[in-house]
């Protein structure tokens, strides 16, 4: 069994809000092996993005209460000093976001920005330029020599995202966190970017933590998927398993809500109600009041994480 690259253990994150705390992530545990693509999927407010930011220790509002551990290659990232974390961020763990304009400096040329990263690894001058050119070719940027001189605003969305991937891969990270990497892209461009991400990560044997609400891209590239609801990881398993046999009622409901066929073939199933905002942590199942299978115990005790089949975990009393 390969040594886990990332091991999240009992992670809880509460945000300070007026009048108390919002439970954004509650007791989440999962791990990622080297070279694996793990997707965290869920709807708004499920906490997936919060987890991604917390792994990188990119605080969302500096007022969180964080409990639990995030082990990366055996070291607890939550216990590191900021200077030590800085060595990890960008180098060992890279991150790309939904909107590349948020991360690309508008006044520096694309090539220069990638070079900056290489400098941190002691590569500069002509060697760095050659490396940038190679990377631009790897991410299939046409006319890479010219594009190296472009400013971000001169590039299309798809090109910017490729520059981000190049920038990130330049440091040769072991883990890439991709937070909604293709949401802002046209679908024909999305297909290209996903392929590049998958190929490059395979080539570099980098693991990926993919954060998304889009089941399509999960089905397309993930090895494992974790489904989150209201801050909790309700189900986790191998990709084919989860799609074929979702066990948690929320997973089942979510998959049934996806439009995958024509209306003449049947109606998709909506889930009644709304996602709760948890301001008071109770010992209950957070999905109980929307669950068609809820029983008394669901409102009295929080379900524990059970391995129903090797590698397939569910948090549910009933199923």
């Amino acid at each position: 069994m390969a040594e886990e690259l990332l091991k999240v253990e009992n992670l809880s994150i509460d945000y300070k809000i007026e009048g108390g705390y919002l439970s954004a992530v509650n007791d989440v545990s999962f791990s990622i092996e080297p070279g694996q693509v793990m997707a965290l999927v869920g709807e708004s407010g499920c906490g997936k993005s919060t987890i991604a930011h917390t792994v990188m220790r990119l605080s969302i509002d500096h007022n969180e209460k964080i409990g639990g551990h995030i082990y990366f290659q055996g070291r607890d990232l939550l216990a590191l000093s900021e200077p030590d974390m800085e060595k990890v961020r960008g180098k060992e763990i890279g991150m790309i976001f939904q909107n590349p304009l948020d991360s690309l400096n508008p006044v520096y040329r694309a090539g220069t920005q990638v070079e900056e990263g290489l400098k941190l690894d002691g590569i500069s001058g002509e060697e760095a330029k050659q490396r940038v050119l190679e990377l631009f070719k790897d991410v299939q940027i046409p006319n890479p020599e010219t594009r190296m001189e472009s400013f971000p605003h001169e590039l299309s969305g798809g090109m910017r995202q490729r520059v981000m991937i190049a920038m990130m891969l330049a440091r040769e990270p072991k883990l890439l966190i991709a937070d909604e990497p293709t949401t802002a892209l046209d679908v024909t461009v999305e297909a290209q970017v996903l392929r590049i991400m998958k190929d490059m990560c395979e080539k570099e044997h980098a693991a990926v933590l993919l954060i998304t609400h889009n089941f399509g891209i999960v089905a397309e590239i993930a090895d494992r998927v974790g489904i989150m609801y209201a801050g909790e990881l309700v189900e986790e398993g191998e990709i084919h398993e989860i799609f074929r046999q979702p066990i948690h009622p929320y997973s089942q409901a979510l998959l049934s809500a996806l439009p995958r066929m024509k209306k003449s073939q049947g109606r998709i199933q909506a889930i009644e109600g709304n996602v709760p905002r948890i301001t008071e942590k109770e010992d209950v199942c957070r999905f109980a009041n929307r669950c068609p299978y809820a029983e008394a115990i669901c409102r009295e005790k929080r379900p524990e994480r059970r391995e129903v089949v090797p590698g397939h975990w569910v948090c549910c009393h009933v199923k």
Partner: protein
Amino acid sequence: MGAIIKIKDLNKQFSFAKGLFAKGITINAVQDLTLDINEGEILGLIGESGSGKTTLARTMLGLTMASGGHVDIDGTEVVGASKRNLRKVREQFAVVFQDPASNLNPRQTVESSIIRPLIIRGMSKAEAKEKAKVALANVQMDLSYLGSYPHQLSGGQQQRIAIARALVMDPKVMILDEPTSALDISVQAQILNLLLELQEKLNLTYVIITHDLNVIRYVSDRIAVMYMGRLVEYGSVDDVLEDPRHPYTEILIHSVPVMNPEDRGSEKQIFPGEPGDVPEDPQACRLAKRCPYVMEKCLHETPEMTEIGPGHFAECFLINRKNARTEEENK
């Protein structure tokens, strides 16, 4: 059920003057578009950035002035119409936009938002309030929401109110521009099913504009595919999705991520380029630089809309490329 909207040779250009000494740019946002929309149908209009789908919708409503061509709405010509006629046409339509917040005035209660347009049209407040109650019931929302403000509602609830507001005007045609793109999956499911129910119940005509192929497959009767300002293919859902004849439709279908990991193929074809990569020659086919079947001819001429089967049309010189290939294979 005949055509309620008849679009013929519609053109819309946007011109930008670059400067005193530089040439201006002209963008053909919509080019040579001819399409009928039938009463009682759901027409899905699909395309990526720059396809012109939103410009088409705006031009149909007279919100943007067409550069040329005709749009006949139930007997009234929109292009070049008088203010009076435009108003008359707009009364037949209702529009729902993507961003639920932009559909509603944050300073007005739900009830105010819904009844205001009716009162402007001359309805009495009492009558309008009654209509608002019916509309809310139609979108399956509790009457207690009449007193709420938009910020107190979830995205899905805001979108329901936007639909209620659209319905209350008794439109013949609803134009929905990315109606569920900003919503979570489970909320999207609620709204899509609601739209289907309402359409059946009230015999509405919908034009649904989206980039999401899965949504379009689910709700549409017919699909129209747009690319860089041109209508490249249209037909029934079955025809367009199961027998796509325009290379762009093929590309689009292949690019959409599979919904099932079992369908993951190592042979998945990824197509090059982006929307916007168009050939220099304005006479060339817009897809020429990205098309896997491109021929010399495509670089100098735009193909014409050709019939493939009853109701199924595409504009490509190689419409029958599949048949040719199959014949080869069967030899």
